[in-house]
């Protein structure tokens, strides 16, 4: 099995990432890179470090050692303006994390106004377009509590893409959703992928991974054990831990 074709320039390039929580190492020298327009899935048992790896990629988690370049920016350098860097890195959380005291549109507008410095009318227009793109044109003036989980997660995606990020990170975006609401979120993610967005997804949505991912990374015990095209990882995993994990997931 040949390695995936190497892209000219990885847009995310993390080297030798170490992260400890107290004495427990959760990332043990992980290398991780993503090419432009690539969709990479990270899978693995809970505690494998996959979410921690994802959260290091916009420095919500501070690695203890290693280096991360995103879109040419040296993320861990003390000279880096992390707020400026984060505008290029959208993130979607398992728990949506919408601002409950703001409407859907205000949720999307906040960073447009305060980070990008857009005027009120302009920000409102961009927010409306982003919400329409995730299929929520009719729900713009609703508060998060008035929306279903799936709709909330789509607002969260709109909040991220409105800033026109270069990459999008998804941290178990459908894990908190009732099964019938998962499809709507996956459809939005599929549309994003077709538009050429670079995406890193931590998720157990195997069917989606099979259909949409360019590459699947399997992590266990803070290490990257195996990676490759979905057909290889799901169809003919080389590592015993990977095989065991896939078997278990498929049973559900």
């Amino acid at each position, binding site marked *: 099995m040949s390695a995936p074709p190497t892209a000219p320039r990885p847009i995310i390039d993390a080297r030798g990432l170490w992260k400890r929580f107290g004495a427990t190492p959760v990332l043990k020298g992980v290398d991780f890179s993503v090419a432009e327009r690539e969709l990479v899935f990270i899978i693995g048992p809970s505690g494998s470090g996959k979410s921690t790896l994802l959260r290091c990629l916009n420095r919500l988690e501070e690695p203890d050692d290693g280096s991360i370049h995103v879109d040419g920016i040296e993320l861990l350098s003390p000279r880096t303006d992390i707020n400026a860097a*984060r505008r290029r890195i959208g993130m979607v959380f398992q728990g949506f994390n919408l601002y409950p005291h703001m409407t859907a549109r205000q949720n999307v507008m906040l960073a447009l106004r305060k980070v990008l410095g857009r005027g009120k009318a302009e920000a409102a227009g961009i927010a409306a377009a982003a919400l329409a793109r995730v299929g929520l044109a009719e729900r713009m003036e609703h508060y998060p509590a008035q929306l279903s989980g799936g709709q909330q997660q789509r607002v969260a995606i709109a909040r991220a893409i409105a800033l026109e990020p270069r990459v999008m990170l998804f941290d178990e975006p459908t894990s908190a959703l009732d099964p019938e609401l998962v499809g709507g979120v996956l459809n939005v993610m599929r549309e994003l992928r077709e538009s050429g967005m670079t995406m890193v997804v931590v998720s157990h949505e195997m069917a989606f991974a099979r259909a949409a991912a360019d590459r699947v990374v399997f992590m266990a015990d803070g290490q990257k054990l195996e990676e490759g095209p979905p057909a290889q990882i799901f169809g003919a995993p080389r590592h015993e831990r990977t095989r065991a994990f896939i078997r278990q997931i498929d049973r559900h």
Partner: protein
Amino acid sequence: MDEFLFAFLNGEILREAWPILWQGFLYTLALSAITVPLGLLGGLILGLLSTSGPRAVRWAAAAWTDLFRAIPPLVLLVFLYAGLPFAGIDVGAWGAVAIGFFLNTGAYYGEVLRAGLGSVPRGQMEAARSTGLSHGQALAYVVLPQAVRNVLPDLVSNTLEVVKLTSIASVVALPELLFQARQAQNATYNATPIVAAAVAYFVLLWPVVRVISRLENKR
């Protein structure tokens, strides 16, 4: 009965004392307008330090809060007004009130706001930061509004106590409502001005009490 009315609800005395009572009422309003914002400012500083500062700072903020909650505000005020001059520091009556309330009511507001800040899930700050907002922006636009909303009844209750507590400014000779009522009582040998002061406090604060009940029923 007539004696009771004469001593406590004397129309004549009330008319006579009215101007200075009104003066006192205005002073009480002015004192409240100074002490409530100062207390809130102190509380905000303490609340933020005790939730998002480094460990040593959080510990210091907690110790500070304990200290100024344990010292009676009256003692603090007298010390600032009458004690500090012995060290060559004369802050004056208004200065003593401002500092004293900043320290004392700041500690109480700080406890309330600390609880409020603690009630906002971590994910809110993370989501805000992930969109490029600075820590301060995330606090101002995302975390604080939720924190305040979550403890609003307690904040308003505390404000009620602060307004009532402004009556201790009478010990540093600031002519607020209680001080003026005492003056009038001494001048007229009649308790009516004190009753009038109580009524004035009630009129001022009863709406606040109603607001608190409504907020508490809502939660």
